[in-house]
């Protein structure tokens, strides 16, 4: 069974992010890491491989520097990597990203396509669904458990109230949530092997995609402006004895319609 894991390079979550004059994320001035959600997807892919055999391939759309991100995934144990990179991709929105990944996937072998549920930079969570649509595949999103048997995938889909059990026939796109597993740390031998693993670089030309479909030209969404989130209001401090405090907290929760 072959698995393709979609991964993205994002700014370090602890870095202060800035937007450039075009209101696009300034990626050059910060340290970049693998999207933390994607680490869970890679781990899940490796576990599927351990259980069912086959290959795990990483697919990434990004700048040349995203090779580092792919190398880390290869160090975790993925077999090979594909980076789609092209200057014309700059400014691509979720629609274009989904389209490009789908076009790349058409040239790859997969039974399961795994994605992190969202990225920590733009955070739309739209790409897994977009990829499934472009490929005409079923999508199972927000999985906190994945099982593959008899040609179908069954997941526990996390919801506010608990989880739903959802299934779909293979091939399928699955997005996983944080906490579905504990991503492994690359071992030293894994890091050493990663250097020798195949990492292909594909351009838009290789995928037969015209420049007008992607990047700023092809974007269906436009960022008009931005503002910082309002600072969090100060919490209310309760300094009473435990009985009185409990009553006040209960009243507060009832008022907020939590209880």
């Amino acid at each position, binding site marked *: 069974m072959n698995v393709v894991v979609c991964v993205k390079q994002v700014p370090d979550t602890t870095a202060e992010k800035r937007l450039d004059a075009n209101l696009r994320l300034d990626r050059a001035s910060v340290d970049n890491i693998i999207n933390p959600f994607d680490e869970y997807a890679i781990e899940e892919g490796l576990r599927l491989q351990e259980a069912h055999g086959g290959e795990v391939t990483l697919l990434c759309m990004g700048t040349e520097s995203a090779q*580092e991100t792919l*190398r*880390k995934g290869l*160090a975790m144990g993925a077999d090979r990597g594909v980076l789609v990179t092209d200057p014309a991709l700059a400014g691509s929105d979720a629609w274009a990203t989904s389209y490009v990944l789908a076009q790349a996937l058409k040239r790859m072998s997969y039974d399961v396509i795994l994605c992190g549920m969202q990225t920590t930079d733009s955070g739309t969570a739209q790409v897994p669904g977009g990829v499934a649509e472009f490929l005409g595949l079923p999508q199972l999103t927000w999985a906190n458990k994945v099982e593959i048997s008899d040609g179908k995938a069954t997941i526990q889909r996390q919801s506010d109230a608990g989880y739903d059990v959802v299934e779909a026939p293979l091939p399928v796109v699955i997005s996983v949530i944080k906490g579905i597993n504990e991503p492994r*740390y*690359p*071992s*030293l*031998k*894994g*890091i*050493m092997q*990663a*250097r020798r693993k195949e990492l292909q670089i594909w351009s838009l030309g290789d995928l037969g995609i015209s420049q007008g479909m992607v990047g700023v030209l092809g974007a269906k969404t436009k960022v008009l402006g931005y503002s910082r989130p309002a600072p969090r209001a100060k919490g209310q401090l309760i300094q009473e004895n435990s009985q009185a405090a409990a009553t006040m907290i209960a009243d507060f929760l009832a008022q907020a319609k939590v209880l």
Partner: protein
Amino acid sequence: MYRLTDEQRMLQAVVRELAQEKIAPRAAEIDDKAEYPWDIKELLVRQDLLALPFPEKYGGTGSDLVTFYLVVEEIARVCASSSLIVAVQALGSFPILIAGTETQKQRYFPNLASGDWLAAFALTEPGAGSDAAAMKTRAVLDGDHYILNGSKCFITNAGIAQVYSVFAMTDPSKGVKGISAFIVDADSPGFRLGKIEHKMGIRGSQTGELVFDNCIVPAGNLLGNEGDGFKIAMMTLDKSRPGVGAQAVGIAQGALDYAARYAKERIQFGAPIASLQAIQFMLADMAMQVEAARCLVYEAAARVDAGEKGITMSSAMAKCFAGDVAMRVTTDALQVLGGWGNFEIRISQFEI
């Protein structure tokens, strides 16, 4: 000048993350209880970090010293005791790497590289610290084996290791040239663990005495020739001193991290104390010293890796300077913490 490769940077980042997430939360407890952290040892084994010094053909990673000491530094940054698990595996194995025969390497390296066995280095005696010629432990050839008598002290991994590189006099009339090196298995007849030391720091790493009471060691476990021991020991120390330096850099960096974080959080006179120039000067001085020590350590390691001659001096300078920096920086870190420093177990644990 040393420069890190992409691979070394990735390893450094991975070990930093591993140390922060898995080792740091255990550090205070390890120090408190003064127990060897077997769980951390298993974690390091899983990550291949005990395989570092061994050639690939024996199951190791054949890593150079710069790579190796990056790992030691990152672990020491959160837990000095845990960093010794990695460092001493090499210290105890370097004599075999330097002077071992193919048969000896085949017998010991696969089990050491896999972490199934641990190693130790036994040179020091109560009356023979720097003065190796004063060594009292004797080895006498008797047919197909040597008989060892005497004792060694301050041995890291005493009672924990399966494999000991032991130095003993085969010809006391020749001074240091009468010293020979042996590989001693933990289960050798007449070999036992003596007193376990109670230490002020690095308490999760076991340090103790080794006793040789008519200990029988096969003649095939002699390293090199009789009389090569001192040379083997000195070559081992040339390679391992920057590792002690890396450990010291890690300890100092960890203390600096802690002090800097505290200074940003501690509010006095309505602002974090990090906004006070007196504190800023201290933190800047600490950072400068740590970085200078780091440069010396990796420069020395890179020289050893490059096979340069005359590495003893740079190796010794790196160890000495980094050790002194660790002492000063941990003391300064305590000062930044003010009165709380007296109660902060994490800082005192950094002290060597």
